[in-house]
């Protein structure tokens, strides 16, 4: 099984610990992970803002970088969503289609592909809330959404429940958007910040000390809001917790 690690650009630059934890976790699970060093970005910034044409070269580079792997694992729901749904500016060759179909988000990979039953090295003796992103819930369908009449389920919580000592609290609005939204956070700062502040208040009101998430871009925004509000919450990527980080 040839597996590539895709590290989102924001994680590369601002949250390297997410990439490191993902790499180490996959190795613990016996996966020989390749990190293609020429990788840049999935094109989401341009795509999200509507600049389809300007995304073309970045998408072509993405396909060149990641073609030929059985799985391209990324610790980011929104990047995976972007590659699956919106890598459409570049020509749809067999390689493009292959890359789009082989990208997989970390939680999906652990839960659906590897079907990991246990993380014997992981212990997290804290009260946590999980921040499930919109891309995770409504696009990758890794968790059920409150909008639909469906049986409740959550792949990330199923994984986290295997971590010793962890205590998972429920927020009041578990699938409300945090207000990051890429371009949105820049063009609509007032609403973005208000949504973020409401979200961290919701997390904080549960008494949790840590917020765990599969999407570092959401938590980067939430962390920024929490710090401004003076809330001492810590934000971790799910890869860190599953990899044995003890907070």
């Amino acid at each position, binding site marked *: 099984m040839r597996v590539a690690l895709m*590290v989102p650009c*924001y*994680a*590369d*630059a*601002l949250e*390297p*610990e997410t*990439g*490191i934890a993902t790499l180490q976790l996959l190795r613990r699970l016996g996966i020989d992970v390749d*990190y293609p*060093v020429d*990788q*840049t*970005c999935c*094109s989401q*910034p*341009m795509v*999200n*803002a*509507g*600049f*389809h*044409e*300007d995304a*073309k*070269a*970045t998408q072509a*580079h993405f396909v060149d970088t990641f073609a030929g792997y059985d799985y391209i694992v990324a610790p980011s729901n929104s990047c995976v969503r972007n590659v699956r749904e919106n890598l459409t500016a570049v020509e749809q060759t067999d390689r493009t289609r292959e890359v789009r179909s082989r990208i997989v988000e970390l939680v999906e990979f652990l839960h659906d592909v590897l079907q990991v039953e246990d993380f014997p090295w992981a212990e997290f003796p804290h009260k946590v809330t999980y921040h499930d992103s*919109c891309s995770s819930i*409504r*696009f990758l369908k890794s968790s059920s*959404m*409150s*909008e639909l*009449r*469906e049986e409740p389920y959550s792949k990330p919580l199923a994984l986290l429940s295997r971590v010793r000592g962890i205590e998972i609290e429920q927020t009041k*609005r578990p*699938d409300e*958007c945090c207000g990051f939204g*890429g*371009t*949105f956070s*820049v*063009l*609509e*700062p*007032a*609403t*973005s*910040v*208000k*949504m973020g502040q*409401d979200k961290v208040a919701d997390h904080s009101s549960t008494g949790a000390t840590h917020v765990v998430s599969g999407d570092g871009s959401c938590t*980067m925004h939430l*962390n*920024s*809001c929490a*710090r*401004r509000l003076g809330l001492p919450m810590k934000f971790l990527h799910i890869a860190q917790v599953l990899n044995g980080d003890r907070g």
Partner: protein
Amino acid sequence: MSLNHHLRHAEAASPEAIPDQQPREPQPRGAKVHGNHPVDHDEAAARFIAAPHHEHMHDSRLWDLRQQRDAQMHGIEEWEELREHASRVKSHTLANLGDYLEQFTAAAQANGVHVHWARDAAEHNQIVHSIMSDHGARSLIKSKSMLTEECGFREYMAGVGIEVIETDLGERIQQLDDEPPSHIVVPATHKLRTDVAQVFARTLGTDPNNSEVHYLAEQQREKTRPLILQADVGMTGANFAIAENGAIAVCTNEGNADLSANVPPLHIASIGIEKIIPRVADLGVFIRLLSRSALGSPITQYTSHFRGPRPGAEMHFVMVDNGRSERLGDETFWSSLKCIRCSACMNTCPVFRRSGGLSYGATYSGPIGLILDPTMNRRKYSKLPYASTLNGSCTNVCPVKINIHEQIFEWRKVMASEHQPAVAERAMMKAAGVVLSNPRAYRAAVAGADRALRVLPQFAVDIPLNPWATPGRETPQAPRETFHEWYRRTDGGRIDTELPASGEDGSGTEEDQG
């Protein structure tokens, strides 16, 4: 008789009142609209959010509606099948709209209804005016209709000296305050009771210091009743127009559509041509979905079916296009015509709940507004598709399964390709596209993590200041090295070194970011 102050049914949970504020928090006003200049949603949203009592009440109230909708949904096992059915009926009808319009109007005429056709808003207003002139009618009462809002009907009639009285409480409040509705179902939901007390005191002469809701509602009932009894014409919209029997269905909670249609001798209904459904039996599905989606109520208090005039009275239908036939031909956006105006997408939208409907500066606000408004004025509403996080909640509550968030995204593409976003944003996107497609340029741009902050993530658009440094959010702290640098330094972690500290002592201090 005694009134129960904490009723719980239908569209409301009768929440505890937010205590009146002293000094009273002024009501934030909507977007500043200057001709065709692009409406600045963020600017208006910032002012709404800066009025915390208003913002909090608005968010809580609409979230309550969303939760009541969910409760209704869970009570109906076949919910998702109903949505699918409704969606298919609408698709089918729109794909055969010509035939169904013919069938509907033939049936209506056979029922004794006068049918008129309006190409646009101006024609709609003129038709209503001329019907009134023919009858020597001077006063008109109407129930809420988004179509008449779209047509600027009240302003037009004021210009020709005809008094229009809104009979829906929320719509009447908005009329008296000279504001458009901020929400398509609960038009004054952005106002606190104290705001309403001020408006009524100014316009109806009520006690400005009495903001008790039952008092305010009763005052409006008492002052509107004589106007209803004396009106020459009653006007309604239509929620559904049924091809099979030529009837229209109108849903209200106050019964004001029925008063408007039944008391005066002349009933005029404004009907968007997309409102057609084929069969009476289809109403069974749509009515089951409509109020449950809108207000979390099993049905509106009144669901009325007007098929023909009563003896001695007249009934007129005005069939309005106003851009609908053109939208029908748009491969990407035609399915927005399936909308049944339930407002579920607005109630669920976290942006709408925080920013208020008037911040959109358009007839339709919230997610459905983002995809309808640009069809009416591309330049004026060019920024609206960006007033969304693309979180997708709207699409999943929509009872007719419109892919709302996908259409918002498609509108961004339209705006970008038509050069609507500002020139600086375009230049930045082009630059980002170049940097991100070239590993060397990219590595140079993010080398030294604090520098990355200048490129990421605000490379989405070029704005002069660090977008993180808004009043409510700190700049992220940059770590000592990027993942890439770590991978190089440690040979992918194979060389055992200490992990770099993440930020606390970081090189990216706030001062650095300025």
